[in-house]
């Protein structure tokens, strides 16, 4: 099944189409493949330069796998990942080998979720941030030190802490170190994999602000992966909602939050606790559990939990459709349903 949905606009930095990633399951003594986990199934999206697209969904929906496939941290099963290089050349990186990817690495960088495991505890901050510089040909030590100091200042860390080891820093500071490392090679695309979910509430806001500032100044393009819709609302230009490996809805942030077109988006939005005791909303509670990515339900993968499901949904897989406003939705009944979003209201405090 092929959906040609995105007409690759000229300013797209990243254009993913029909991306698939299966993980084989081995069993028995011979370790033969008995089934596949369809972690990512036909995912397409494009991110314009300087913009942020968020992938949201619940655990196991394939958002992290998608981001890692875009990074080519793993081999993809199918589809294309077209990336516009700083030279202007557009490369499909989906099929590139390890060696072929190497020159592109500097242009696509990543910030990890876990501020503890993402920094080598045995290296000083200077070595951690300086490593990408070193392996990419900045041989003079003083040059590296200068650049590391500049990067540290840029992310809000005092440069005199350069010789310290990661264990001397708090979670939020470590995440800044991770951001500085990602920035070291002047990437154009940053993949941010749940960069604030391991942080304390008060620190989370600092890091989000930093990311917004950096994007403004350096014209960075973000692929932001998160499960927290409040954070997503804050950082994104566009949001793609994933369920069981597929994108079920993709739209501009405000449009998606105000008027969702997919019943899953509606349920997801209504489940978010609102930090306002005067607005204890009635919820659309989902029944049951997420289906298995090994043997997804027939028809629309969401139908067993959908309040609006009809016979058609149980048999026919919905196609990703484009609406007039440039939104994309994968639901048979998208045009007839009137779903409610979060609306807007005054903040407390």
């Amino acid at each position: 099944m092929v959906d040609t949905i995105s007409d690759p606009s000229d300013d797209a930095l990243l254009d993913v189409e029909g991306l698939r990633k299966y993980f084989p399951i081995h069993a028995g003594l011979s370790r033969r493949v008995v089934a596949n986990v369809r972690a990512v199934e036909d995912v397409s999206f494009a991110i314009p330069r300087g913009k942020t697209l968020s992938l949201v969904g619940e655990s196991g929906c394939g958002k992290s796998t998608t981001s890692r496939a875009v990074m080519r941290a793993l081999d993809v099963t199918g589809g294309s990942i077209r990336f516009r290089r700083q030279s202007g050349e557009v490369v499909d990186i989906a099929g590139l080998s390890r060696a072929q990817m190497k020159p592109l690495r500097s242009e696509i960088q990543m910030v990890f979720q876990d501020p503890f495991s993402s920094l080598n505890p045995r290296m000083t901050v200077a070595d951690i941030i300086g490593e990408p510089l070193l392996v990419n040909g900045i041989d003079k030590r003083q040059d590296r030190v200068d650049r590391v100091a500049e990067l540290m200042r840029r992310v809000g860390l005092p440069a005199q802490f350069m010789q310290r080891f990661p264990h001397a820093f708090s979670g939020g500071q470590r995440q800044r170190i991770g951001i500085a490392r990602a920035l070291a090679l002047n990437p154009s695309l940053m993949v941010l994999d749940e960069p604030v979910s391991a942080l304390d509430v008060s620190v989370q806001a600092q890091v989000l602000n930093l990311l917004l500032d950096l994007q403004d100044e350096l014209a960075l393009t973000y692929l932001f992966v998160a499960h927290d819709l409040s954070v997503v609302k804050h950082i994104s230009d566009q949001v793609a909602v994933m369920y069981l490996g597929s994108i079920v809805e993709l739209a501009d942030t405000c449009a998606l939050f105000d008027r969702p077109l997919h019943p899953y988006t509606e349920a997801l939005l209504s489940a978010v606790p609102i930090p306002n005791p005067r607005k204890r909303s009635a919820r659309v509670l989902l029944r049951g559990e997420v289906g298995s990515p090994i043997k997804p339900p027939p028809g629309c993968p969401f139908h067993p939990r959908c309040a609006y499901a009809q016979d058609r949904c149980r048999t026919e897989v919905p196609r990703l459709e484009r609406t007039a406003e440039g939104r994309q939705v994968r639901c048979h009944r998208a045009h007839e349903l009137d779903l409610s979003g979060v609306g807007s209201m005054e903040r407390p405090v």
Partner: protein
Amino acid sequence: MTATYIETVGDGSATESKVLVASQWQLMWWRFRKHKLAMAGTFVVAFFYLVVIFADFLAYSDPNASEAYQALLPPQPIHFFDDGVFAPHVLGMTGKRDPQTFKRVYAPDPEKKVPLRLFAEGYSYKFLGLIPTNRHLIGPVGALAEDTIFLFGTDMQGRDIWSRLMIGTRTSLTIGLAGVTLSLLLGILLGGISGFYGGWIDNLIQRSIEVLKSIPTIPLWMGLAAAMPRDWTVVQVYLAITVIISLLGWTELARVVRGRFLALREEDFVMAAELAGCSRARIIARHMLPAFMSHIIAAVTLAFPAMIISETSLSFLGLGMRPPAVSWGVLLQQAQNVQAIAISPWLLIPAIPVIVIILAFNFMGDGMRDAADPYG
């Protein structure tokens, strides 16, 4: 604005800032240092390896020189004063036959004083294997044939146990070291392959380890050791024994290496290094090896006792090192018989270093294992 990000932790006393810039080895050392038993074990191990280095110097008589009439002499304690004057000496032994049992019984003879001195002359050897000399730490003042000392007594062939113990320590502990080194090479190689490549080769190696671990080792070694030709030289036997006992140690080391490899492969910082454009070699050398060196050192330390026990056991059975080689196991062969021990308990003296060094290695290894991951 920037200043607010500085941790309060970072602005503390001098010791605190030391921690902030401490490398993993420093952190580990600080943690290891707190482990009193481990520190004691380390000193003991260091002491024993000093004995290994200076074995010939510490011995005072040729370990294989035997005198039938001096068989099973009891230890001679050193007397430091003679009539209130500092004059270290031992008392000579006179033997006579017990009229009832007809056994030779020895008693110290207060008339026969054998004066001792430091750096005495004795048999010739090469100091550190390089410098020919005949000086030893202690010995009788004159190199007269009848002036002999036996600090730990003599064995059934009338050989000096002290001197044999020094030489035996060298044999047993170097076999241990060589065996561990060999196991380590095997362990790192096979464990590394297993952890790095994964898949069927990992499966194969893991299953082989399982099979190896469920085979009773001693009968197998005995079989292998017995198969060594009788006419092999001491050196050949030594090498063969090393190979045989290292067949035990590698499985555990391989398991540690593989486990660390697999754990590290999943670490985000390894992926980050890859994304930064690091080569495979750099990732292994800069990110993975430093993270498990400490674990390997700890595992190696804990592998020593098994090596030493293996050598001692095999030699004790007469299947390991064979005379004229001297090792702890060879020395303990003399103590196989209960009657012999009952009459000459000093034959069991060589058991003491065996137990002490195994304890020391265990303590040291335990401390190392606890300190191996300072970020845990």
